[in-house]
Structures are given as C-alpha cells and as structure tokens.
C-alpha cells in the first residue's frame, strides 16, 4: 500500500498504530507478571502490575485523543477509516485486558503461593502461556498488516476455554473436599476466569484487526468450548 500524498497523514496513522503496539506489549507483560506473581506469591510484583494498569488507562486515552483528532483533521475514508475505528476498539479491548490482569494481581495476597496444588498451578500457567501467545500473535500481524495471520487465531481461543473448564472442575473438587479451601479457591477461580476473558478480548481484537485490514468480517460463528455455564457440582 502506497503512502498518502500528504505524508503527515501517514505519520498520524503510524503513531496510532505504534500506540496500539505499545499497549499490546504492556498488556502481555501485565498478564505474564500477574500470573507469575500469583503462582510465586510475589506481592511486590503484584503491586507493580496493579500500578501499571494506570499506564494502560492513560495509553487508551491517548489513542482516543489521537483517533478523534485524526478524524476531525483528515476525514479518513475506506481503509484509513477502518484503521482509526479499529484502533479505538482494539485499544478498548487492551484496556480491559489490563483491568483483568490487575484483578489477578490484586488477588495475590489472599490466593497466591504455595497453597496452590501443583496440577492446578500447572493448568493456570498453561492458560496464561496460551493467552500470552495469543496476545503476541494478534498484535504482530496487526502491525505487519498480515490479515491471513489473524484469520485462524481465534481458533486457538478454544484451547483456553477447554483449560478453563478443567480448572473450574478441579477447583470445585477442592472446595467440596475441604470447605476451608473455598476462599482461596474462589479467588483462583476468578483468576482463571480472568485469563479466559482475556482470551475472549484477544479474539475480539483479532476480529477487529481482520476487519481493519481487509474490510471483511470474519464469519460470526466461532468455536466455543467454555462449558462451565452448564457445569454442576
């Protein structure tokens, strides 16, 4: 795609894209840090993640401002318009990812550490790793303008949903075994749910990025493997 005749238009668009990339990197870092803090009961790290959410919020406001200014100044059309609207929506999803990571970090003092059974911490770590891979593999093709790389990305959200269902059942078992586990297990359940929600936001980002790059919507139906809505104790 050639550049605009007005080069400052390109610079404005590039700036917004760079903000999204930065937000994506920050989001990935927050998710990784929050999980590490949870599993290692690392409270200083957890506090840092909580404070990083303020940076994430500020970045989202910057994207909002830049996008609104660009629309007012340049009246973008076609792929430029899609890029600006897409950036607004992607920034909103990334901001939510930051919130969810912060929420995991806030639970570290009550739920974290050695009390987590091995198999469970393994599942949480795997969920977190999958989510991280997803975040990185949505931001990279978005900034590289590679729509093909985005089309099959949301399929891998299915794996996260399957893991979440496993963690959900496992936590239910622990709570039934010993009611004293209930408090910690509930916190861990929220942490797992947060990771699962982050996966959903990444899927949203992939869909928005695909539309931004191609002008086509991905088909509405996508695999769904979170069965906890039907689960019984």
């Amino acid at each position: 795609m050639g550049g605009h005749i007005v080069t400052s238009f390109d610079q404005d668009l590039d700036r917004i894209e760079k903000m999204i990339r930065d937000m994506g990197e920050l989001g990935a870092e927050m998710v990784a840090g929050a999980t590490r803090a949870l599993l290692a009961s690392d409270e200083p790290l957890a506090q840092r993640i909580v404070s990083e959410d303020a940076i994430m919020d500020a970045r989202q406001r910057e994207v909002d401002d830049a996008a609104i200014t660009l629309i007012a100044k340049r009246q973008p059309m076609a792929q430029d318009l899609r890029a600006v609207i897409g950036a607004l929506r992607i920034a909103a999803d990334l901001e939510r990812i930051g919130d969810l990571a912060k929420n995991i970090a806030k639970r570290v003092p009550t739920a974290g550490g050695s009390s987590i059974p091995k198999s469970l911490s393994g599942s949480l770590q795997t969920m977190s790793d999958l989510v991280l891979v997803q975040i990185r593999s949505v931001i990279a093709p978005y900034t590289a303008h590679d729509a093909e790389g985005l089309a099959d990305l949301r399929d891998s959200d299915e794996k996260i949903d399957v893991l979440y269902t496993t963690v959900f059942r496992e936590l239910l078992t622990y709570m039934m075994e010993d009611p004293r586990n209930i408090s910690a297990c509930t916190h861990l359940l929220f942490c797992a749910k947060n990771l699962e929600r982050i996966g959903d936001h990444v899927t949203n980002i992939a869909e928005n990025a695909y539309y931004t790059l191609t002008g086509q919507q991905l088909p509405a139906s996508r695999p769904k493997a979170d069965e906890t809505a039907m689960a019984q104790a």
Partner: protein
Amino acid sequence: MPEAIMNQQTYRKSEFANPAGPDSAAFSRPNTIPDELRADVRGLSFWYNDFQALNNINLPIAEKKVTALIGASGCGKSTLLRCFNRMHDLYPGNRYEGEIVLMPENQNIVDKAIDPIRVRLKAGMVFQKPNPFPKSIFENVASGLRVRGIRDKALIANRVEEVLRQAALWDEVKDRLDHSAYALSGGQQQRLCIARTLAPEPELILLDEPTSALDPIATARIEELIESLRDHYAIVIVTHSMQQAARISAYCAFMHLGELVEFGSNETIFTSPKEKRTQDYITGRFG
C-alpha cells in the same frame, strides 16, 4: 506461419474484432443494482475527434437516488455527465458509441436520430459556476417553461413558485422576483439555477460540481436541497469532494482515464472499496 499468427493477435486486440457496441455490451453487464432504473449507460464510448475520452462505460442510474461520479481531473466524469444531455453535440467531430437508455421509455438518448434539444428537456444540468441568465429572478425560471412552449401566464407563475419552493429559495426571493438574478449571492444563484432546471420537469438532474464555487454554508444548503430533490428525481452529480459524495450519494462510480474502475453502493465504495485504484484515490494515496 508466424506472420499470420501475429496478424490474428493484432486483430483480436483491435477495436474491429470486439466493437464496444450496444449489442456486445448488453451481454456482459458488470454493474447491476436492485433499484428501479431511470437510465442505463450501456457500453458507452466517446471521442473528442481522435481522442477517446470514455471507454465502454456501463453504469446504471437509479430512479430517486443520487449517483456520484468521482475521479481525478481528466478522468472523464464531466465528459460522461455531458453525454446525458448531448452537450458534446455542440462541437463537430465528437462521436458517441454505445447507448444511454432512458427508462421507462427505453430510448437511447445518444442516438443521432434523436434531437438533442429534446434530450436536454429531459436532462437538466447545473454547472460548477452559477450561470443565471441576465434577467429577473422570475424570468430565469420561467424561461425554462417558455422553451417548452408554455405560454399560460398563470400556469407559469404557479410553476415558478412551486420550483422556487422546491429549490428552497422562495422565502428568500418572493418579494423581489423582478430583481436581477445577479443581485443574489452565489449560493442563491446556484439554487436559482437548480430551480430553472426543475421547471420543465426533467427526468434526470445532472450536477457538475455544483458546490465547488460556494462557501460551506451555501454548500450545506445545496446538499440539503439535493437530499429533498432525490425523493422526486434521479440525480447524477460530479464532485471533487469525496466527503460530499459520501454524504449525499446512494451509488458511486470511480472513474480513471476514461474507464469506470469501480461502481458500488455508497457503503462499499467509502468503507471497503474492492479496487486498489479506488482505494488509493479516495484515501488520498499515490496511484
């Protein structure tokens, strides 16, 4: 025999092998729309003497909708617009091929057998620069009726008021209908020209950059007027303002070097155009 093959290839590429006539165009209609048609451009080519300015244009014009023609200067959009009222006939050496079929009468208006004056009664045109006649406001509108042969004074007075109201000008001029049209502001003059066009009840309204000489307020008034007129007329507008085309048109055609590159609904052209050249043009990129 290599020479014979060469000749055949040259022949296949030549215009004789594949004339862009009405019959060949009728077979392959690339641009179709679900709306009722007011006019249908079929395989239209046009030459200014030896220079081919339009090449095999296929374009449906929907009834009671605005169709915008966009493209860089020299792409042929004004040339195409002027075919609709046979303005090119004023100069010798100009030549049409193909058809512009006016519906529902199913009449090819670029057919030499049809009197261009009759075509112009059906297709009223408004130009970039307001061009009122050096007459009174009333006479400017009435003259359009007089060329139709209408002499009844009461009828003319009624129709003048009616179209001045349609052109959203009546309240501003009703007390000074006998004043010179030149006393009006640029935007008012342009609305007067539109009123003059409406008077003989045209079937098609052709607007050639109607707001490019006007300020934003006068432009907004004209756009408001176009929006009210599209409930009654088929409108074709040539505009250099992409935003204007996006605001008022239902369909949009992008032209480049005498060809129609892409035709589509407003939504498609301005959010997800299919052709790279359309995309480059409407987003302001290099071709």
